[in-house]
């Protein structure tokens, strides 16, 4: 049995440890009116290199897993859903809930403990807005820099997983059976963050504030299990949504699209 990821991820000492991260300490966030918790890991300040440029990152917290369905369900049930065919209007500062999905949002791949999939950037933005409102904290999706910094656990060393490392740490093409898998079951990275290099891609914002999907997913091959993988929304992600307008909440073909939250101090 492999108990630690050999090689790049585990052997590279983190630039600094969460325990040394000034005032920040890891915590568990309880979702309102539920028993669901998100484990938020304190991440220290540091720098990450994106496209050859060093980008500073301030301290923040990040969920140790991709957001599972049971957390998203609490949000979806927290108010009336958007009307499916009238989803174009809500106030800029309002919290809107997802419309009913045209398809099975979880595709029958698993629900409790499985990562949220098929969600649009709007959906995850609203989830964060709702969570912030309920907890009086600043939840959002990570910036691209935060995401990659967390994925690398602060290391700037190149990450190239061997097959054994990938098997131990990632859900990817060779072991995922063509679908998402339970979050938090593989070996985490050095900052105890699970599934950063597999299972689902994770929504983030780029330097311009635009949505970008970070990281590999369960369909990606070994060579693509790197923190630099990026994807942008394209019409194919909603190709089989048979409605017009297509859903603003659900990506009918975004079965590899999920998210995890960060919290700003």
């Amino acid at each position, binding site marked *: 049995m492999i108990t630690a990821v050999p090689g790049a991820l585990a052997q590279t000492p983190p630039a600094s440890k969460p325990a040394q991260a000034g005032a920040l300490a890891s915590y568990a966030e309880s979702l309102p009116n539920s028993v669901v918790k998100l484990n938020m890991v304190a991440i220290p300040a540091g720098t990450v290199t994106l496209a050859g440029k060093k980008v500073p990152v301030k301290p923040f917290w990040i969920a140790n897993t991709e957001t599972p369905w*049971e957390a998203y*369900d609490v949000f979806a*049930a927290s108010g009336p859903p958007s009307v*499916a*065919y*009238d989803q174009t209007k809500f106030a800029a500062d309002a919290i809107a809930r997802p419309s*009913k999905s045209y*398809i*099975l*949002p*979880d*595709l*029958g*791949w698993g*629900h*409790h403990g499985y990562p949220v999939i098929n969600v649009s950037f709007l959906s995850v933005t609203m989830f964060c807005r709702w969570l912030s409102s309920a907890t009086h904290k600043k939840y959002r999706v990570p910036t691209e820099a935060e995401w990659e910094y967390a994925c690398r656990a602060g290391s700037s060393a190149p990450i190239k997983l061997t097959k054994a490392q990938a098997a131990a740490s990632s859900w990817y093409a060779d072991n995922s059976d*063509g*679908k998402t898998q339970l979050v938090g079951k593989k070996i985490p990275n050095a900052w105890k963050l699970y599934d950063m290099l597999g299972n689902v891609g994770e929504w983030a914002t780029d330097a311009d504030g635009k949505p970008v999907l970070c990281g590999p997913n369960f369909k990606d091959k070994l060579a693509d299990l790197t923190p630099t993988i990026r994807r942008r929304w394209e019409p194919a992600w909603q*190709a*089989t*949504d*048979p*409605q*017009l*307008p*297509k859903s603003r909440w659900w990506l009918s073909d975004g*079965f590899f699209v999920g998210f995890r939250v960060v919290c700003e101090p």
Partner: protein
Amino acid sequence: MTNNSETGAPQTRREFLKTTTVAGAALAASGNYAFAQGSDKLKVALIGCGGRGSGAAADALSADPGVVLTVMADVFKDHLDRSLANLKGEPSVGKRVEVTAENSFIGLDAYQKALATNVDVVLLTTPPGFRPQHIKAAVEAGKHIFAEKPMGTDAAGVRMAYEAAKGAAAKKRAFVAGFCWRYDNPRREFYKRIHEGAIGQVRHIQATYLTGPVKPMPPASTRPAGVSDTEWQIRNWYNFVWLCGDGLIEQACHSVDKILWAMKDEPPLRCVATGGRQIPNNEGNIYDHIDVFYEWPDGVRATMAQRQINCDYNDNSDYIVGSKGHAFIKGWNQLEIHGDAVVKIPGPNRMYRQEHEEFFASIRSGKLIDNSERMWRSTLAGLMGRMAAYTGEEITWEQMLNSKENLFPEHLDWNGKLAIAPMAIPGKNKYV
């Protein structure tokens, strides 16, 4: 027993021209084969301008560069206006949306006004309770028809629609049914292999459509003043059996259709079913779960599990057991046949576009598609399951052929009173 022909015989030019309308006559004068060229216009009417109908119109416009949308009809002006704005705003097809105020029709009779125009093609995408009368009227008006699934919400309506539409190709009209999986190429390959014996004889099918509620009924207290019973019910159509048919008919009919597909469209001999409602739904009278157990000759059986309750397990799959292996469609992307060898069928699913591409290609070529037979069978098999669930009786196909069930209101008045039938109680409700 089966009649699953996709296309009718090619028609002669003379036959074709005999049936064309004004636009066709004009083209005939020019000596062209009507519609044969991609540059010829095909005028389309959209009847039912909700999200799916608007999507169907976009698919139609994308399918053929000669398609123009000229007419729209709905009972709600707000739906039509929104749909029109969305379609006009579609980058690739918006320019071919030529609907004017004069060609926008609102009301319960809007479909008749739409059919009275010179359109060649109609897209019937209202709630399914209206489908039978729309299909019948569209056939009588001589239009090519795309009819969204299901074919209706009761046996009488479905029979009326089928009697009107059957032999569509012989009537020189295309009739495409919105049982869209039949236009999904990976699934075509899957069922073709099963029909060819890849898993031997089909012995048992387990189909699931286990999901959450679609459009729950709002409380009666939220009904705005001045909204009639009729409008209130149509606005919330998913919750009323006469309009929606129940979840088994409106949504899980796709799974019933795939059961029949696996069975080469041979209808079941009989079925029993259980069902009910666990989650209160205000004034709505549909169930939130129905499980049907179908039977064919030689002990071949199928189970259809349908649920619209938020739960921790969801599934929309088809599991087929054969005498020499098994096969399954798990979720929407995993198609596997485990016979002598394991065959995994990949491929993108673009069925909504495909069905319109084949629809318009069939009109262009004159090799007209007729899906009326299988649409009728799949819808009636679903209604058979609902009848068994609502009554607690064993229901035979023969009974369904003779069922007098007719849920459409005798007098439907936009401003009138419309009582809501009580939810069915098995053991108390009887076969009709």
